[in-house]
């Protein structure tokens, strides 16, 4: 029972971290209908920015977040404006291939610059933990989880309450109509991608703080997790990624407790496929995003 509760708690904080990775991914997917395979690469880029700041200036990773956010926003804006906008109307596998090529370029550049060693940002508190009853909760992961929740709530507020958020939603719903209303779709798409990249970078920073990262295996895993979470939670609702993240986090830790070997990965994929078949709009997503004809 203790073990189970511990797994539950650990899964919940892990889920928050995963949700932070997925929320930007699901935003771009929902608004532009682009699956960004370079999302993991952007997250790792953010992790390197924070790692460098920590290495050279001794900056705490939580204080580095604004710098990481701004840097990654700029990178994301340029990528969308200069590259992805060029093929935005193409069949889906073209945008998939473009972002795949992009991620190859980014990751190999990172690998050449920083080698493929495992890196981590050391802090005095990340490995400390406190105890509630019988459950052990690490400070670093809890902080990352709370940050993820705060950012998701903040993003939802931006999307529903500001002109920018309305412009983004409108462009996602009907680009033609949005442009007729005077919304600059190219700019809005670029801003959306920038926000997504910034969130990925922040998530990468958190991962670097509570665990370790490298440019070879981490990005692919993060992109795949973001995929699964976005589908689980559903598109068109900012809280979808949060719900999906918690479900995946808890399912993985509890599954890991009950099953041997890597069977838990097979179970995660089975859950994904069954969700897609039974409820393609995700747990709390909007049906509009699953029913449309895309190919």
């Amino acid at each position, binding site marked *: 029972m203790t073990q189970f509760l511990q797994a539950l708690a650990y899964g919940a904080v892990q889920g928050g971290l995963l949700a932070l990775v997925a929320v930007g991914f699901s935003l771009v997917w929902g608004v532009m209908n682009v*699956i960004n395979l370079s999302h993991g690469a952007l997250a790792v880029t953010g992790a390197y920015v924070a790692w460098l700041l920590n290495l050279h200036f001794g900056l705490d990773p939580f204080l580095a977040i604004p710098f990481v956010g701004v840097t990654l926003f700029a990178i994301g804006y340029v990528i969308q404006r200069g590259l992805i906008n060029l093929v935005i*109307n193409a069949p889906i*596998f073209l945008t998939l291939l473009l972002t795949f090529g992009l991620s190859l*370029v980014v990751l190999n550049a990172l690998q050449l610059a920083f080698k493929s060693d495992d890196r981590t940002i050391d802090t005095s508190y990340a490995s400390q933990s406190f105890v509630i009853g019988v459950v052990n909760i690490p400070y670093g992961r809890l902080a990352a989880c709370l940050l993820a929740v705060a950012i998701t709530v903040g993003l939802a507020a931006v999307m529903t309450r500001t002109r920018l958020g309305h412009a983004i939603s409108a462009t996602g719903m009907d680009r033609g109509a949005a442009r007729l209303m005077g919304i600059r779709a190219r700019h809005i798409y670029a801003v959306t991608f920038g926000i997504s990249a910034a969130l990925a970078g922040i998530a990468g920073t958190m991962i670097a703080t509570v665990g370790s990262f490298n440019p070879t295996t981490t990005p692919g895993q993060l992109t795949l997790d973001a995929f699964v979470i976005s589908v689980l939670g559903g598109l068109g609702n900012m809280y979808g990624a949060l719900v999906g993240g918690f479900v995946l986090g808890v399912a993985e830790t509890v599954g890991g407790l009950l099953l041997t*070997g890597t069977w838990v990965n097979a179970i995660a994929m*089975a859950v994904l496929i069954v969700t897609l078949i039974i409820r*393609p709009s995700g747990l709390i997503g909007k049906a509009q995003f699953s029913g449309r004809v*895309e190919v």
Partner: protein
Amino acid sequence: MSTETASLAALLEGRRGSRNEQVTEWLRSRTLANSWGAAALVALFAAMLGLEQVIEPGTMRLLSAVFMFVALAQGWNIIGGFTGYASFGQVAFFGIGAYTTAVLMNNYHASFWIAMPAAIVGGVLFAVLIGLPLLRLRGHYFAIATLGAAEGAREVVNNMTPITGGGLGITIPTFGSQAPTAYFGKPGFYLAFLLLATASVALSAVLARSRFGYAMVAVHEDEAAAGALGINTTTVKVVAFAVSAAIVACAGALYAFQQIEFYPTDVFDSSFTVLMVIMVVIGGSGSVVGPLVGAAGLELLSQYLRINLGTYNQLIFGAIVVAVVVFFPQGVVNFVRDAWRSRRLSLLDNIRRYRL
């Protein structure tokens, strides 16, 4: 009969006559194109057979890989190009083909000539099993679901240690009396992969001109309209998926025998899927020549980069993929064909096509 009606009748008759002539003309040109295509394929096959006599074993191995990718790209093109369902789990069939072959040859001492058909059957069965529910999904959702199916298949193989050897890998016995089938060697595999590539191109060409091929394209263009025309879209999609799985599983079986020893992470590596997609898209999806050109061009290029650029090869490769997607979104073959027909060669037109 008044002269007016007579002339109208004559006009109608004339028009009908001219249309018949047009149809006949079209049929003739089609038959001509078909026979030219068949002749070109035979010539290419003969040239490759001749080439085998003059090249070194190392080059033979490289060209075997090229042939394998031609077959894989043709396989993906049937479901992704013609039918328009972008499968991102194609590597599952490759892995299932490889593991069926290895398990039969290693655990049951079966001959390769029994194991390979069994591998194809395995791939087809898996395609039908996952195709029936998943082909109801569209676009990204189908892509992800198939990706998930491939990842799941890998994990299952990874965890069935008593049968598949799990993460420790599996070895096909190839020496002495242990070997169920004598190892082909480099020339043997060159020939085997060449035959597979040729057969897949021929199959793709025959399918493209068949009633079934038109049904696949109709599903791609507009599924509802295809259904309204009386096409059983479910059957078309599942059969197309199964045919593409058969080609890929056969390639997987040959690859397994060629490698002798391999791990689940090798044959279920999703970068295989991505390569298939890139090759088809760069060559020109939905055509017969496109995947051939794309696979041969890209595999030769990536081998060249690997040999000559060392650590930078992946970086350059990624940059090339990005550039090709932006400049040739419809694929090289389709680009050349359109440029030939319209007598206009403009890269800017390509960029204008899909940009915002």
